[in-house]
């Protein structure tokens, strides 16, 4: 039993080490020649929506979900913060800064820091700390609190990116009723299903973590996407190999 744990630990360490090495090597190799990715209509529409935000002086609303940073859902929260940073930079030429809503207090503080930094980098001196908001600490209070900004603050695009449950449908439904563009993504399976039914564009599965690469956030994002693809093929090979060995009676 302990032997199995050690082997599994070593395998996990090997995967992390291999991924880190590949990511570093690919980001150096491909710094000058960024890879081209398959087209995702959701990101094409997001680019158009961001352009519209800048042109018509409306606002972008980014909802980061409820993923606590010290929980397994922290990765989706970090992916959400990464795209918030990129979108805040892209809309810095607009009249109004984006609004970020969160259902986790630490995430709300980080969203404030992200928006403040984007404002400082673009030379905006009048940063509004209330642009990064904690709207509630339970799933439904968070969703209920994220709805008024969509209705009342001249929002023309809503991006949901992070850890959400089925309560996300309430936010995307209001976005639809307000005729605003909505792009939704979560690491939660039930949330992905309700988002598919209610949001205008949905990112399924690991597409959530590809958002940074599609938003041109840098060579590391692009290389991490390539590493994800390599690891996926590795996982497929291991599963097929395991199935074949099992069928042959070796395992």
């Amino acid at each position, binding site marked *: 039993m302990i032997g199995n744990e050690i082997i599994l*630990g070593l395998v996990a360490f090997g995967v*992390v080490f291999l*991924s*880190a090495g590949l*990511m570093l090597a690919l980001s150096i190799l491909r710094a000058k020649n960024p890879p081209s990715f398959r087209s995702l209509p959701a990101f094409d529409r997001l680019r158009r929506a961001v352009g519209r935000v800048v042109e018509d002086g409306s606002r972008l609303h980014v909802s980061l979900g409820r993923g*606590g940073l*010290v929980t397994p859902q922290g*990765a*989706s929260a*970090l*992916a959400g*913060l*990464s795209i918030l940073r990129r979108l805040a930079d892209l809309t810095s030429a607009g009249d109004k800064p984006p609004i970020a809503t969160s259902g986790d*207090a*630490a995430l*709300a*503080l*980080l969203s404030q*820091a992200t928006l403040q*930094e984007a404002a400082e*980098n673009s030379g905006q001196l009048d940063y509004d*700390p*209330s642009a*990064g*908001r*904690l709207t509630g*600490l*339970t*799933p*439904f*209070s968070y*969703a209920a*609190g994220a709805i008024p900004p969509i209705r009342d603050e001249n929002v023309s695009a809503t991006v949901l990116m992070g850890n959400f449950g*089925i*309560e996300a*449908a*309430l936010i995307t*439904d209001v976005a*639809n009723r307000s005729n605003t563009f909505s792009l939704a993504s979560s*690491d939660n*399976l039930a949330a*992905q299903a*309700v988002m598919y*039914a*209610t949001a205008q564009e949905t990112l*399924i*599965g*690991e597409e*959530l*973590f*590809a958002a*940074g690469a599609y938003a041109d956030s*840098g060579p*590391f*994002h692009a290389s*991490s996407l390539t590493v*994800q693809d390599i*690891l*996926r093929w590795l*996982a497929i090979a291991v599963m097929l190999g395991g199935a074949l060995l099992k069928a042959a009676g070796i395992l």
Partner: protein
Amino acid sequence: MKLKGLFSTAVAVLCGLVVLAGYFVRLDILVNASNTLITWAILLTAFAILLGIINLLIVHVGKITRKQKGGFYSIILIFAMLATFAIGLLAPHFPPASPAFDFAFRAVQLPVEASLMALLAVTLTYASIRLPRRRLSVFSVIFIITGLLVLLGTAPLPFLGDTPLVSDTLRPTIAQVLAASGARGILIGVALGALATGLRVLFGADRPYGGK
């Protein structure tokens, strides 16, 4: 990068590496350091809740003073927040306040959340009806047909009971074979994405703590 950003990146990367090393290498010194850092993170997260609540208060006070739409609801929110906070502070030292604190949750929070859950059922039904009009594709059609088949297989028909073929064959096949295998595929993808995101933070490529 500014000196502040460089320092925060160095601290974050170092802490991340120590926690990661403590997970894989079971040396006492690394495990203890890793546990200490995680405990600090949990303490900071708890303190962040207080700051988050102050932020919520500031946002709603701003709404009232700027006479924005929905300001009346902000007054109710602030009143309820301060009252619950006061009762919560009193409860451990003043026993009669304790039932009032429980009452605030049982009589207000729970029914409101249950109502929103009920509203969600209606919202999802309406959204599913509108889905083909909004986004007509093969996947949308599969989504709706699958949803209908699972519903039909799960809920018995009035006077007839279970639907033959659907309840005993189709629904279990969809739920336990097709949906389960698809879900596992998605979860593997999410896990790989989470790994890549974690590594980006460890390399300092993503810096949610600031310092571009």
